[in-house]
């Protein structure tokens, strides 16, 4: 996706992970401060991490509206087929974009198709009829604030940390 907005100073290896990732783990703060983690497919538009969630699995959307602080892990060597493999965690502030549940999320579709080409097949009208509410979706837009990066994926070693609110730490 082309974007005219100024890029965030996200470390290049982490951008590589985001662009390769088919699965990331999104953690939100739920009711009573309880943390909830769900697998999501992340997309990077140069400034934000974007994800889409069906209204069927929308508890995370309600949680984000109540508390926008989230964390996203890129951890799975299978789900993140980057070479060389590394691991990262991105903390940030999330926003739910749900003005148009039916069409709004389609702006993410080019990024989604690039990672999962089969998605286009599943969007054929007759296919969508099978599970119509799965395709009523919101966008989760995460503005990264802090990035932890473990170069070899070994989290028992200290990570490299970048604070995106200011200069790299």
């Amino acid at each position, binding site marked *: 996706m082309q974007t005219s907005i100024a890029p965030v100073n996200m470390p290049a290896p982490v951008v590589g992970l985001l662009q390769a990732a088919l699965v990331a*783990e999104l*953690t*939100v*703060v739920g009711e009573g*401060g309880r*943390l909830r*983690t769900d697998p999501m497919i992340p997309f990077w538009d140069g400034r934000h991490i974007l994800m889409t969630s*069906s*209204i*069927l*699995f*929308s*508890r995370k*959307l*309600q949680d984000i509206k109540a508390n926008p*602080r*989230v*964390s*996203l*892990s890129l*951890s*799975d*060597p*299978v789900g993140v087929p980057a070479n060389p493999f590394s*691991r990262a*965690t991105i*903390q940030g502030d999330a926003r739910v974009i*749900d003005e148009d*549940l*039916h069409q709004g999320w389609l702006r993410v579709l080019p990024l989604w198709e690039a990672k999962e080409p089969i998605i286009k097949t599943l969007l054929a*009208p007759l296919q969508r*009829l*099978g*599970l*119509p*509410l*799965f395709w*009523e979706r919101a966008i989760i837009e995460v503005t990264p*604030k*802090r990035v*932890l990066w473990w170069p070899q*994926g070994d*989290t*028992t*070693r*200290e*990570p490299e*940390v970048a604070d995106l609110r200011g200069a790299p*730490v």
Partner: protein
Amino acid sequence: MKVADALPRLPNFSHAILVVRDDAGYPLSAATAFRVIDGGIELAPVKTGENVIRDAAGGALNPAGAGWRFVPRTARGWDEQDLSFPELCQRALPQARRYLVQLSAERGHEVRPQMALGWRFFLATRLPFLSATIVPVFLGLAAAGYDRRFSIGLALLTLLGGVAIHLGLNVANDIFDTLSGADEANFTPTQFSGGSRVLQYGLVSLRQMAIIASTCYAIAILIGLILVLATGPGLLWVGVAGVLISYFYTAPPLRLVHRGLGEVCVALGFGPIMTLGAYFVQTGHYALRPLVLSIPVGLLVMLILYANEIPDRGADAKAGKRTLVVRMPKDAVLLGYVASVAATYVVIILGVVLRILPWPTLLALLTAWLAYQTFEGLRAHYESPYQLMPFLGKNVKLHLYTGLLLVLGMLVATVSR
């Protein structure tokens, strides 16, 4: 999911994600190695820069330590082997509804899922199932043609009337299955069973469904009256029977399908009533030949319902919908299927042997292989709704192809007569 069920599954995973809340209030998640020990879980310590990972009491955990142990209190998880993705989505419907209610409150107007009007009509009326009407009407018309009686105008009106009553039935069935709770309790609907789900998805309101059903029935009754005026009062009884069976199929107080009479009603409605009605409209009288022709398609359309009830049987039982499939064990259900298919082909053969049907109608026997494949599929996947789907599809084709081959046989016989 119980903790005791979850722990044995953990060694299948390559790593864990440790999630904590950091001092700034952000969640902090990081991958780590783990192992299950004595009913607990031991994590390899994670280093997270300046972030301090604390235990439940607020004490800092030492990232240079040997391992962090904890005893799990709760577990949640999803394995597609245990719960298919379509069923997971059906079970998540209440969450989708909650979200839409919250969104509606935020915006001050009702937010509903969207779908183009044409697709909503397609879904709500279950249009693809119209083959169940088209086949018996064509058979009645073919039988009339064999007797050298055919009016294209009356044929089109008959077809339109049949379609209207069928669509009315489908929509009324959804309304009453929703009101009775049968569709709501069904978490394993397929494209062949469990209703259209438009009410459960919030795509169409109950009021809109009632309007569609009423309109379809009104059109069907109006066309029926025109046809009675055009052909004679003899059609009235067939027409009245058709409308009553259609409406009271799921509607109270009769709820025929709840009493194990759904199969018989469907067999009568989409067999003799449609075929004899279409024949009567063309000829002004009833006859044995269209009656015999209607029996195989009546039996096979009954089997569409019968097989479709297999994945629905749990939800049907909960809603008090005591279909034949709910009432009988698996072996008896399968035996019933085989007996009905056998009866279908025996009627065709006897019809030809007794010279009621012309010999080209034996073409319909070509579908026996499809019947065998369908039976094998039902037997193998009786407990698996989504693996049953291809065979429920074959079952629909069995009715369609057998009916169309009977029509073809009648046309060949008419031309060569």
